Every structure is written in structure tokens, then in C-alpha cells.
């Protein structure tokens, strides 16, 4: 289907201490499917940015690049450090990636083991690991769930634990792939409040335009492997032409 690539004429946020810089990122899957065609953008400390776009736009693919799980052509810098094969493990500690399905993220039998997985694999001493687990569970308000079995949790609870599993690594950038999918309104509300409170830079992909409007001052719109708009949420949500061209809807 033809897609109008509207030129991006929204004001770009200014910033000095960049948390993330992506420059001209290209990527094709092994089967030849080109999923990213030159993606560039910046994130600044404290930014909360929504990443929207239709199915297949390349949002998840982009996110998998930000901590080096996929490896395209182009430059990625996290807090000034270029992402290379050598500092992969340092970068992975700085970028916390939360996947869409919490069942894929919570692979250990108990909540404690899952939240401890990241710190343990960073090689921290036991006491630190325990402290970080406690702090991360505290941050998502799930301290009392420490010794629960993961499969006994509801979707909303699993989601929050999934966020804790990366918070325990003290990331400087939090990346969430469709966090509100499959939640009922009540659980969704809890999640929104949680994300609002967390004092971390975050990039969140979503189809949930209400979430975008409520939570994010800035939106990046992707379609067909390109960034087609990047600017203030208020302006972008007003631009119906842009939205419909990229399969989006006003909330």
C-alpha cells in the first residue's frame, strides 16, 4: 500500500546531554526483508517518548538494535558510548529492554530469581544483587511478591515484574515494547501511573493512542522502516492527515 512520507516539520526538542543517539540505521532480516531504512533520532535525559506506527513499521526491530541484539548498519550511541561488540555488556546494563509478552521476559520459576537475573549476570556480589532486587520490586510496588511463582501472577502483575527485571540493572534508558497490550482498563491505569512516576528516560512503542496522549510529551512516528514524524504529541495528534496516512487514529 502506498504511504505518504510527510516531511517532518515539527520542532525538534533541544538537548545537550544525549542519552541515546541513533544515526542512519539500516537493517535487513536474514530472509532479505529490509525492516529499517535509515532511522535517526535522539533522546535526552528525562525524555519520555512514544514510538507509534502501524504493524510492521519496524518498531520492535528498532528496539532490538538499541541494546545490540540485532546489528544493523549505522551508529548508535548510549550516553555517549558507541554501541560496539566490545562494550555490549556495558551497554546492556544501561539499556533496559522490556518485551511485549511478559511470559517471555519472566523465564524463571520465581519472581526473585527473575529480578535477580540481570544483576547476577552483571557479576555483582550477592548482597548487592539482593539490594537491587528489593529496590526494583519496591519501585514497581511489588515487594510482597518477592517469593511468588511467576505463573501465579495476573497479566498486569507480570507486566510490572517484567519492568522490575530491568530496573534491577539500574538502566539509564528504559525501552518498553507495547506495554499496555492485553491489559484491562484497571491494570492499564496502574501501569500508566507507574510509568509516569519512574524517573527514567524511556522510549515506549504502543498502539494505544490514549496512553500516548496522557503520558508522553513527545512522539516519534514510524512507518515502513522510516521515521516519518518526530515532535510534540499535541501537534502530531492534531495532524489528522499524518495520522491517517500512517494507519493511526486520533485518541
Amino acid at each position, binding site marked *: 500500500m502506498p504511504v505518504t512520507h510527510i516531511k517532518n516539520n515539527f520542532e525538534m526538542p533541544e538537548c545537550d546531554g544525549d542519552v541515546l543517539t541513533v544515526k542512519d540505521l539500516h537493517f535487513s532480516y536474514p530472509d532479505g526483508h529490509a525492516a529499517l531504512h535509515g532511522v535517526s533520532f535522539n533522546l535526552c535525559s528525562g525524555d519520555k517518548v512514544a514510538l507509534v506506527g502501524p504493524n510492521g513499521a519496524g518498531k520492535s526491530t528498532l528496539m532490538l538494535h538499541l541494546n545490540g541484539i540485532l546489528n544493523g548498519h549505522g551508529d548508535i550511541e548510549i550516553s555517549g558510548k558507541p554501541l560496539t561488540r566490545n562494550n555490549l555488556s556495558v551497554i546492556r546494563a544501561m539499556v533496559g529492554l522490556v*518485551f511485549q509478552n511478559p511470559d517471555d*521476559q519472566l523465564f524463571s*520459576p520465581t519472581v526473585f530469581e527473575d529480578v535477580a537475573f540481570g544483576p*547476577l549476570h552483571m557479576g555483582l556480589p*550477592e548482597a548487592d544483587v539482593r539490594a537491587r532486587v528489593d529496590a526494583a520490586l519496591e519501585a514497581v510496588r511489588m515487594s510482597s511478591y518477592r517469593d511468588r511463582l511467576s*505463573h501465579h501472577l495476573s497479566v498486569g502483575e507480570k507486566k510490572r515484574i517484567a519492568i522490575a527485571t530491568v530496573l534491577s540493572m539500574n538502566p539509564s534508558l528504559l525501552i518498553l515494547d507495547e506495554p499496555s497490550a492485553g491489559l484491562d482498563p484497571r491494570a492499564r491505569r496502574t501501569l500508566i501511573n507507574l510509568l509516569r512516576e519512574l524517573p527514567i528516560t524511556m522510549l515506549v512503542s504502543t498502539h494505544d493512542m490514549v496512553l500516548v496522549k496522557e503520558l508522553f510529551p513527545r512522539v516519534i512516528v514510524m512507518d515502513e522502516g522510516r521515521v516519518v514524524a518526530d515532535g510534540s504529541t499535541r501537534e502530531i495528534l492534531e495532524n489528522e492527515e499524518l495520522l491517517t496516512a500512517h494507519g493511526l487514529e486520533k485518541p
Partner: protein
Amino acid sequence: MHFNAFDRYHEKESFIHRLDPRVKAAVTVVFIISNALLPDGAWVAFGFAWLVVLLANLLSRLGLGYTLKRSIIALPFALIAVTVLFSIPGKPLFAFHLFMSDFTITDAGLLRFVSILIRSWLSVQMAILLVAVTRFPDLIHALEHLKVPAILTTIIAFLYRYLFVLTDEVFRLLRARESRSAAAAGNRSGGGVFWRARVAGNMAGQLFLRSYERSDRIYNAMMSRGYSGHLYTLNPHEMKPGDYYVTAFAIAIIFIVQVLGRL
């Protein structure tokens, strides 16, 4: 399918629940070995061993009959041992004629048959008790401590975690098939047996692909959190004095069972 339909752990407060999982696993295995070592017809020892099981039930606050009620699962297999009733020479107790052959139950055969059943039944009860008082993740840790190769214990941990997710998927698949298994009035419904088998195979194939792709996503999630081929775990268990004492006590009891069996 509800989430905890598979859990065998029975939440209760008791010192047996709090024992180190290694102790519980080891004692269970020793008890089962002891049963296997008891000679046929050691009624006193069998009885004493059952008292031990009952006592363990009580001490775990599960109620006297907890394991008894759940122990019937081993019964169907008893069928396989039925032949010893007739095959061991001894004093004939009872004879009958079936399918053009004569069958004679002998006293020695009966003795052996009943002994096999009792051994099995005692062992099953202890195994039931083990998982009723030990959370499965703890049991996996116990296996780690007991030197089962890490690759196996991690596979088992993953199996336990995804058992619930994938059986849910299976139940939903089966449900979807069932809801479309209809008949038109006046037609013979159901399709041929080969077609039905193929549908089941397709479902297994579909489940395989979904599981395979899930393992990719899990691998990504693990890598994002620093995994690079080696798994580290915290060792949450430590043998306390009570654990040693209970082990000693249990071994003494099992030894008494063995002595009783040979008097």
C-alpha cells in the same frame, strides 16, 4: 485452564515444609530404596513404614489421609503384575477357567503380588508427600546441590516455568477444535481416523513453531539482561542444624524398618 491446576505444593506452616529441600529429596529416595529392599511378605515392616508415612502426613499438617487419597494413581499399573498370581509355584488357593485356559492362584503368587503393590503404594505416597511440602523451584535447587548437571536442572526449571504457559496454549487449541467439532443433522460427523490424527499432528506442529519462536524471544530477553552462555544463580539454601538432625532421625527410622523386615 487455570494457572495453578498443576501445582502439587500444598501451602501449610510446618517444620517439614521448612526443611532443606535436599533433606526431603534424599530422605524420600532412601525411603523408596528401603521399600524396594524389603523382602516379600514383611508385613510388620510394611506396616511400620506406613506408620512413618502417616506420621509424616501429620507432621506436615496435611491431614492423615492426604497422601492416601492421592496415591491411587499407581494402581492401574498393578495390572502388569497380575501374572505373578499364577506364575509362582505354591499351594493353590483358587482356580478358575477363562478363555479356554486354567488359572490357579497360589499362595506364593498372592504373597508376591500383594508385596509388590504395597511397596509401590508406600513409595508413591512418599513421593506425593515430597512435592506437597516442597515448592518445585526449591526441589530444582536441591537437584543442583545434589550434583545433577546444570544443563539438566536449567532445562527442568524452564520446563516447569513454561509448562503452565504451553499447556494453557494446548487447552485453548483443544477448546477451539472442540467448539468446531459439529455435526450437520443427518450426516455422519467426525471425519476419518487418519484425518483426525492429522489434525492432532497439525496442532502439535503449530505448537512446536510457537514454542520455537517463543524460545527465540526468551533468548533475546535473556541476552538483554546480560546472559552470554553461562547461567548464574544465587544459592538460597543452607543446611541448618535441624536439617542434619532430621536426616539422622529419618535414616534411623528407615534402618529400623529394614531390621523389622528381616527379623
